[in-house]
């Protein structure tokens, strides 16, 4: 690399070259970009570097049967025996493939992609087919994710390179750096590129400093550093390659950023380590020297980051941590699933999965008759449209219990502890019913979604335990946020109930001013809006001596009111059951 501060586009160009060079070793690219000319151009660049004529695209709504392969209906009916059909992942063996709208992929699709990335092959056991398919893919996960939607963590973890095109406008697209010939030349010398033990330690240390739990990121960084050296025509990895790996692999996955406000101690300009001799694997005993090396590399990499990116990363890191498991996947989990509850005669062109066995069984008795009818004894099997049977699935309706917890000072600290206790009891009940849970807390100026809908009670419990108390009561903001979540959930066909734990003393208006009157007025307006949603609510009064405030609120919300003092486990559970019907 010759440029001192590579532009964002330059990084993207490097990534496009690297995905062709070492894509199969790093899984692929997590591409964060809105659809548009910049993304199209970047994908064009990837394509121009590859031997593929065009990059195939996996749509987000691809049925499992098509993704994995399954029974080939036409061929099966024609030949009278099950004929397997290769799925899309098998067809894309040793190719680069794009997953469109990766943030909305159903959980099962994510899983199959992960298996393909891990093992390079898939085992398929469905619809009478039982086979293994080679599926070594390089995946470009096109993530158009907004604030609320994230690509699933299991998938992003397996994609070594992250490219963020979002801050790049069409004018930010610079000159091309590479051509296909360079990539072919780099491929030829890729395996000879040397990596010193210092650099290995630096990558391991940096990945830990940046709070990256999974070792996969560091493994990818090693590959990217080698690839970058090969692309630059070097036979040994140097600091600029490590910086490149940091920018493409580690920093985008950072869960924490080292404190850069404090000026890092200026390291002595060390002589470059002898790069050409391979280091014998030995335990790193040079612990004193390590941090400075790491600081130097990290600083070098950060210095090369365009301005403003750091802040962006910082805010994103916080968000990613908050919903590490990815919310969209969980919500879509049951779209294609459910328990097969039987078969029915139907038209397969209207969707649904053909049940071959039932279809063949329906056709069997008529075969002699049909053969005679056609005067064609040779044809083994004749299936008519009325024979087609489809599998019927019973889909369980998802339900979500949303906890809205008042953590303000008026709700009083000791009452907050009790409220937490009550929520835990309720959580246990959600566990039995296998509900999703989500948690909103409100205090001081804002209401915050502490936990996006999840089925993991461990996370709910953690979020709850970490909830601080004190401050004013922004009731209106809390109710508005509740309404947002309820709306989003009902769009996805989830039934929601919310449980609001509060003393009802609203004293922060929507605009953030502390004013009891305005606060109460805004809260009532918000409550009326929430009341028209198709959702059942429960207001648990946490006031020391229950007054009419929370009851009035419950009335406005058209929810059930219950005072906490009486709310022992059994009463609460009974009430929740009554509310959720």
């Amino acid at each position: 690399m010759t440029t001192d501060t590579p532009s964002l586009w330059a990084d993207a160009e490097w990534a496009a070259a690297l995905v062709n060079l070492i894509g199969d070793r790093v899984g692929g690219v997590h591409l964060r970009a809105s659809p548009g000319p910049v993304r199209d151009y970047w994908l064009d660049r990837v394509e121009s570097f590859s031997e593929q004529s065009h990059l195939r695209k996996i749509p987000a709504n691809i049925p499992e049967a098509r993704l994995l392969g399954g029974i080939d209906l036409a061929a099966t009916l024609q030949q009278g025996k099950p004929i397997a059909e290769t799925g899309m992942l098998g067809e894309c063996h040793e190719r680069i493939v794009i997953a469109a709208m990766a943030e909305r992929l159903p959980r099962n699709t994510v899983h199959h992609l992960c298996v393909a990335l891990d093992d390079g092959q898939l085992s398929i056991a469905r619809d009478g087919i039982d086979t293994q398919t080679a599926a070594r893919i390089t995946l470009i996960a096109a993530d158009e994710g907004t604030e609320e939607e994230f690509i699933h963590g299991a998938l992003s973890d397996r994609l070594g390179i992250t490219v963020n095109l979002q801050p790049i406008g069409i004018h930010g697209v610079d000159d091309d750096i590479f051509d296909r010939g360079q990539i072919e030349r780099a491929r030829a010398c890729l395996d000879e590129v040397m990596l010193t033990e210092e650099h290995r330690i630096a990558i391991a240390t940096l990945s830990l400093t940046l709070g990256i739990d999974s070792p996969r990121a560091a493994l990818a960084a090693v590959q990217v550093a080698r690839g970058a050296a090969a692309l630059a025509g070097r036979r040994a990895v140097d600091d600029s390659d490590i910086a490149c790996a940091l920018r493409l692999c580690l920093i985008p996955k950072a869960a924490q950023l080292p404190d850069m406000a404090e000026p890092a101690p200026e390291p002595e300009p060390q002589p470059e380590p002898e790069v050409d001799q391979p280091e014998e694997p030995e335990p790193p005993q040079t612990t004193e020297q390590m941090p400075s090396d790491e600081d130097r590399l990290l600083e070098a990499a950060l210095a090369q980051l365009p301005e403003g990116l750091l802040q962006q990363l910082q805010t994103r890191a916080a968000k990613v941590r908050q919903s590490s498991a990815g919310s969209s996947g969980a919500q879509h989990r049951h779209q294609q699933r459910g328990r097969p509850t039987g078969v029915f005669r139907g038209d397969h062109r209207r969707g649904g999965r053909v049940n071959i066995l039932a279809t063949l069984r329906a056709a069997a008795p008529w075969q002699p008759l049909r053969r005679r009818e056609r005067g064609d004894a040779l044809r083994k099997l004749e299936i008519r449209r009325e024979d087609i049977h489809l599998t019927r699935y019973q889909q369980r309706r998802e339900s979500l219990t949303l906890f809205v917890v008042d953590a303000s000072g008026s709700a009083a600290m000791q009452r907050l502890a009790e409220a937490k206790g009550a929520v835990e009891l309720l959580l246990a009940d959600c566990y039995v019913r296998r509900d999703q849970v989500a948690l909103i807390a409100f205090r001081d100026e804002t209401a915050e979604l502490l936990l996006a809908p999840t089925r993991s009670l461990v996370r709910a419990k953690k979020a709850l335990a970490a909830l601080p108390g004190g401050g004013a009561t922004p009731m209106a903001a809390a109710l508005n946020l509740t309404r947002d979540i309820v709306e989003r959930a009902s769009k996805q066909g989830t039934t929601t109930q919310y449980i609001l734990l509060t003393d009802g003393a609203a004293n922060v208006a929507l605009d953030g001013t502390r004013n009891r009157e305005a606060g109460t007025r805004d809260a009532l307006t918000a409550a009326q809006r929430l009341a028209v949603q198709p959702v059942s609510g429960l207001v648990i009064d946490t006031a020391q001596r229950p007054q009419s405030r929370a009851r009035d609120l419950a009335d406005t919300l058209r929810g059930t009111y219950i005072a906490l003092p009486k709310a022992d486990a059994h009463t609460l559970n009974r009430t929740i059951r009554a509310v959720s019907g």
Partner: protein
Amino acid sequence: MSTAYPFTAIVGQDDMKRALTIAAVDPGIGGVLVLGERGTGKSTTIRALAALLPKIDVVKSCPYQCDPHHALPGLCDLCGKSSAAPAKTAMTIPVVDLPLGSTEDRVVGALDIERALVNGEKAFQPGLLAQANRGFLYVDEVNLLEDHIVDALLDVAASGENVVEREGLSIRHPAKFVLVGSGNPEEGELRPQLQDRFGLSVDVRTPSDVPTRVEIIRAREAFDKDRSAFRKRWARKESTLRRRIQRAREALDSIDTPANLLETAAKLCLALGTDGLRGELTLVRSARALAALNSDPIATLEHLKAIAPSVLRHRLRRDPLDESSADIRVERVISQLFNDCDD
């Protein structure tokens, strides 16, 4: 899979490796549940196990890998009926993948449609459960498994027999397998009934010290560079462990179990308030398997102590909100109990 990562080359994760090896020694222990975050090498380790397992004798061309040295029960109908000594062949203990998205017909087996149509025969096409008989059945992301597949698994895992009553078929065949499940607990809870089926459970974490991380990077680099050379380098360790498992399998029946071991196992379960007898039985069996693995003639309290957290972790009286403290609870009771024993 000759290009799988070698089991012995996996850096760290000793708990997981030990639990899997123990399950390979004594399949009756009831399987292993591996829970952990992303990137802990869960599935790599389990898939690596397949390349490590010793060979077993099976009846030739039996779809259920029946044991030629065994008599009824536990054989399939065909092998059970034949009176002549069956032709036998050796095969590596199977590790069968149960992928998410499997359909029930392929899991439990179903009517062989080809033979039904072509020859007009009503024949059974065995499913994954048949393939896994006497071997391992691996479910990645076990907490995402569809409920109706879980139902099918639960019954078979308990009885060791797969009963198929569908499409005019009425078949029963042996299906004794070691169930191995892995998953990320952040993505959802495992059904308690399924969790109970697992004999051992391990919690895997990502290593967070630099030297281990560097070692992971180094090992993976070498593996990616030249897979067969890497495997060759580890071949000796692999075959040593394979022989150790093989020897332990043979020695298992002759391991002594002193009375105080049984007593301690019972006390431990009582102190922890685990439900049922399964915990005690698994404790004793695992201690024996560990003793066999270490070439010790007697199962001792040390073995018991080493294996107790894995056996009991998931059996504590279920408080779904108190997940994190399970390990601590087990260890506390163990240390209390063993201190008492020492006095």
